[in-house]
Structures are given as C-alpha cells and as structure tokens.
C-alpha cells in the first residue's frame, strides 16, 4: 500500500485534519510527522539559509523526517486563495526547496492551488486512484473537517482578554506557540485569536484591508481591526525574516498606537528562549494593567 506522508507543519495546522481524512477515505496509509522538536528543527536548519523564517525551517525538518519512510510527501503548492490573493513567496517556493531536498528519496505530491482548492484535491485523488466517484465521496466525507479551527477561549467572563495575532502555523505549533500562550495565561489573560472570528470578518475587504493582497495578512489585519477596541492588548508574533509580517505588522503597530491599544511585537527565531519570551510578556502585562486601570470598560 502506498504510504503518504504529511509534514506536521505550515499548512497542516489549517488543512491537516481534512487531508488525513481525505487520503484515509481513499484508502491510503497516512504518516504524519511527529510534533516539532529540537532535532526536527535542527534537521531543517541544514537545508535552508539562515535568513529564512522559522516555519519554513521547521517544515524542512519535517520533510527530512518523512522522506525515507514514505512513498510520497503531500505538499500542495498554495499560490492563490480567495480570488486572487497570494500566499507568500516562501509558501510558493517551499515545494521547490523540498524537491531539491528529497531528491530521489520519495515523490512530492504537490497539486498547484490557484483559487481551485477542491478541484486541485480532486485531481490529486483522481491521479492516485483513477476513480472519480471514489474521490468525490472521499472529498465529501472529509469536507466537514475543513472548518475545524482550534479555539483557546470561549469565555464571556470578566477576565482580561488579549489578542494573539499570528499565523496559524506559529500559534498552533506547540514548539513555537505553546510557551507564548502559557505565558499569557499564567499572567491571567484570556486569549483571543483570529480563528475565533467568522470567515466573513476575516475575509472582508473594507478599508485598508483591500490593499492587502496576501491572504493571511488580510486575515490578521481584519482580526486586528475587529478586536482593537475589544481587547486589553495585542501581541503580534512575527518570525524573523518574514516579509509580509514585517510590513503589515508595522502598519498594525502604527494604528494600535493611534488607538492607544497596547501592542507587543514578539520576534521569534530558532534562538528565541522561553525565559526571554516570559520576561517580555510579563513586562507587557504590566503595561496592560496600568492601561486597564484607567479604562476598566475593556473587560469585554
């Protein structure tokens, strides 16, 4: 039986469940790489230049883990989503990097996704099985798992709330996100993320958002706008070397300044230490508390 590997990194944190169900429904064995750890990261560091962002380094590590145990690695090339919005140069290029990295060790299954998410998956399935009906059935049964978004808080209680603004592959990869989330929680905050918001808000193209042609940056920006007067503070996690974040992060930070919402930019890379993060978050929560005493209405 053909074994298909899925790296537990980058797009896995949005589409992973869907992919697993889809390929299982088609009758393939799925191997998902283990959760990111230090060794995986170090493997990845060997394959890309040091100036590339952390999530790309991490996914290279996962590909390394998978390449000798599976027949094919599933790594779609996300070029455009949501009607002509781009992902990011590195998400497009990662497939080529992976191809160079694995060489002949295994295949890379990488349908090109240019505003045709379902069709691209259908074609992949068809190529594998040659049975359109089976593929449609498999897709249909997998679709409910597309909208499985993680949530951290569902509270309407009167704890203080902060917004953690970050790409899903940073936030939900425990190797990166867990320390940050824990640190905020132990400072007594409730955490809102962009995943809590309905698609309608995230995909809106009102105001400045219409200028942003990067699909995930637009989501981040919309979440920022939506929450900016509903939370006590905003923390923006940026990977060092991330191009889109370096710009949109700057724009958000300038606007947060205008709105007088406390805004923390946490820049992370493979050298970031847990203590460093904790110190910065504690200092930030001090600022929020001071700010909050003057504006108690910010609880909700």
């Amino acid at each position, binding site marked *: 039986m053909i074994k298909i590997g899925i790296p537990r990194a980058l797009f896995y944190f949005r589409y992973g469940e869907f992919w697993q169900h889809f390929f299982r429904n088609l009758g393939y064995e799925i191997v998902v790489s283990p959760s990111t750890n230090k060794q995986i990261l170090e493997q990845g560091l060997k394959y890309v230049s*040091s*100036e590339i962002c952390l999530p790309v380094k991490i996914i290279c590590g996962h590909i390394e883990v998978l390449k000798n145990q599976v027949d094919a690695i599933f790594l779609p090339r996300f070029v455009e989503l949501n009607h002509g919005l781009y992902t990011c*140069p*590195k998400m*497009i290029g990662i497939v*080529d990097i992976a191809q160079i990295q694995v060489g002949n060790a295994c295949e890379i299954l990488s349908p090109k996704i240019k505003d045709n998410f379902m069709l691209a998956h259908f074609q992949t399935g068809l190529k594998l099985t040659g049975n359109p009906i089976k593929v449609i059935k498999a897709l249909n049964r997998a679709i409910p798992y597309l909208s499985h978004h993680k949530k951290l808080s569902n509270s309407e209680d009167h704890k203080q709330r902060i917004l953690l603004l970050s790409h899903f592959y940073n936030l939900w990869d425990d190797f990166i996100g867990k320390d940050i989330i824990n640190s905020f929680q132990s400072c007594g905050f409730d955490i809102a993320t962009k995943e809590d918001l309905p698609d309608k808000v995230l995909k809106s193209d009102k105001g400045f958002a219409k200028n942003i042609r990067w699909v995930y940056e637009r989501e981040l920006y919309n979440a920022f706008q939506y929450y900016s007067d509903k939370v006590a503070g905003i923390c923006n996690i940026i990977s*060092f070397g991330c*191009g889109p974040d*370096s710009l949109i992060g700057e*724009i958000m930070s300038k606007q947060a300044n205008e709105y007088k919402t406390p805004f923390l930019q946490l820049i992370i890379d493979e050298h970031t230490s847990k203590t460093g993060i904790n110190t910065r978050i504690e200092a930030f929560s001090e600022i929020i508390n001071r700010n909050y005493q003057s504006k108690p209405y910010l609880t909700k």
Partner: protein
Amino acid sequence: MKVAFPYFGYDTIALKNFLEMLGAEVVLPPLPTERTLSLGTKYSPELICLPFKITLGNFIEALEAGADTLFMAAGARKCRFGYYHFIQETILKQIDNNVDFYPISQYTPFEFIFQKMPKIFSVSPARVMKSINFLLAHSRLIENFRKLVRQARVIDFTLASIHEKHALEIIADAINLMQIRKARKEIKALFNFADDLPENIIKVGLVGEIYLMLEPFANHDIEKELGKMGVLVLNNRSLYRHIKHLLHIDFDRIKLNHRAYKYLKESPGGEALNTVGEARTFIKNGVDGIIHIFPFTCMPENIALEALQKMSDDYSVPILSLSIDEHTSKIGLLTRLEAFIDILKRVKNQKAVSRVPRSSLLTPH
C-alpha cells in the same frame, strides 16, 4: 511642482529625462551616501528589506533639497515591494505634511498612460506615449553603455573611469531620439579600445534582486570593484528590460522562465525566476562563476538561493551568495569577493572543475 524619485543606478538619468519630457521640474536628491542609509534606517521598520531603507533615505534627502512631489513605483503582488509606498507615505507625511506622494503602479500601463500621467502633469496621452518611447530608447542607450564600460574596465580601469564620466555627460545631454543615435556612436567610439578581450579572462555572471543589481550604492559598487580585479562582469538586468517586461514586450523572459523551470516550477514573486534563468544561461555560455546578490531576508531570492546551490552542484560552477543589509561592510565584502575570484582563478588554471563546498560560500555577511 518639484518632482523627486529614488535613485535607480545609472538609469536615474533616463527617468529624470522622462519626467522632464512630461514637463516636470525634477529635483534629484544628493547621491546616496552613508547619511542616506542611516536616515532611511532610522525611520524604517526594523525588519524591512534594504531597498526600502535606501529609497526612504533618498526621499528624505529630496525633501531637504526642496522637492514637494514624490514618485514611487508600486503595485502589490507576491512580494513586499508593492507595499513599500503605504508605509513610506505615512513616514514622509509625518516629516513633511505638505508633501504630495504618488505611488505609480507598475502593472497597469494603460492607466499610467491614459489617466495617471495626464492627470498629474496635465499632458495628453500621446505625449506620455512619446515620452515612454523616448524612455525606452534612452534606457537602451544606458544598457549599451554599461555593457561597454564593463568590458573597458577589464582592459584599462583608469581609462575606463575617465571615459565613463564623459559618456555619462553625453547620455544626460541626449534629449531626443536623434541625439540618442548620435550619443550611441560617440560612446562606442569612446570605448573602442576594449573591443577585443583577452581569451583567458575570468567571467562572472551577476544575478539577484534588481535594485541591488542596478544601484551601485546598494551593491557597494560591485561591478567596478570586480572590474578593478580584472574580472569581466555580465549583468543582464536593466531598466530597459524591466520596462519592456512591464509593457509585455520582453520576449526573452519566456526563455528565461523556461530555463528556470528545471529548478522553480512556479514564480515565487520578485525576480527569482529571472535570477535562476539568467544564472543557467550564463553557465551555458561558459562563465567561471556566478555572484548572487540580494537584500538580507529577501524572500524570492532566498528561494532562488536554494535553486542556485543545486545548480552549482549540477554544473560544477562556483556560486557566491551575497546578502546585503545596512550593516554590510565594504571591506568585508571585498575580502569575500577576492577570495571567490581566487577560487575561480584556481579552478580555471587547473582546468579541472572542482566543487566549492557550500559552507565556505554561505557565511552570512
């Protein structure tokens, strides 16, 4: 209305003449210096790529020089460049509230010809088209000149520098098509001492991000420095080709993209496909090495870098990657260039092709 725009290497002259043809009064900021860079860096977001910082520095110095209308290329696509102007405008408005800032989208030539330019300068679309035609001719003249001067430097560096100054004056003075034709002949005559190149010369192909390939201040004058070492530099990027590309008449691109396809199956944005395609062409034409230059953390070029490493292995041609930011020191850069050229010389003399280990080429800065 006093118009200014950021420097763009030798092609600055062509852009200046273009705007003057439309009736603008152009104020060129002082040539970029360390001050430009530190001013730009001071006001820039920390993690942004180098072209942002230098062009912002240019703008600030242009304001100091009395400009009140600023032009910046725009057009949001996959990479950061198209978004520069949003932040630059905010920053510049904080410095001088009265400044007019016009982002010019690169990817809408029709809007540019029929709406944008006629509105800003109150001229007819026909005049804009005539000026574009002139811009093409002028930037082609500059491309030609750059090619000649690169060859001339290898033969006699001092003489080339003297003639270079003279040639630049000729280029600046050419303000219609007739004069451009005359200028081309004059420049050719100036550099005819370099028509025949010696056989065993070291040839290096320069590829990378367009701003760093064209703006001498940003690339620490890499072409001149290599010329001083007696190395012939090949550089196929120019404003001329870029404009042709924007007007969809650069048919060489198709070939380049095709050549890049072996390594990159989809454009990651920016100039990555060009970089990879050009490098492969250079190698096919028998260069001794490739120099890949790009801004620190540049997204498309970091993807291209991996492709180039593979290419270097496949064809056994050494590649030097130079990632440049505001901390890059010229001395450090020169040392690396010299070491690289030494390797190329050794390889050439041995006539045996050996592989340069990746680690020796990839030390940051």
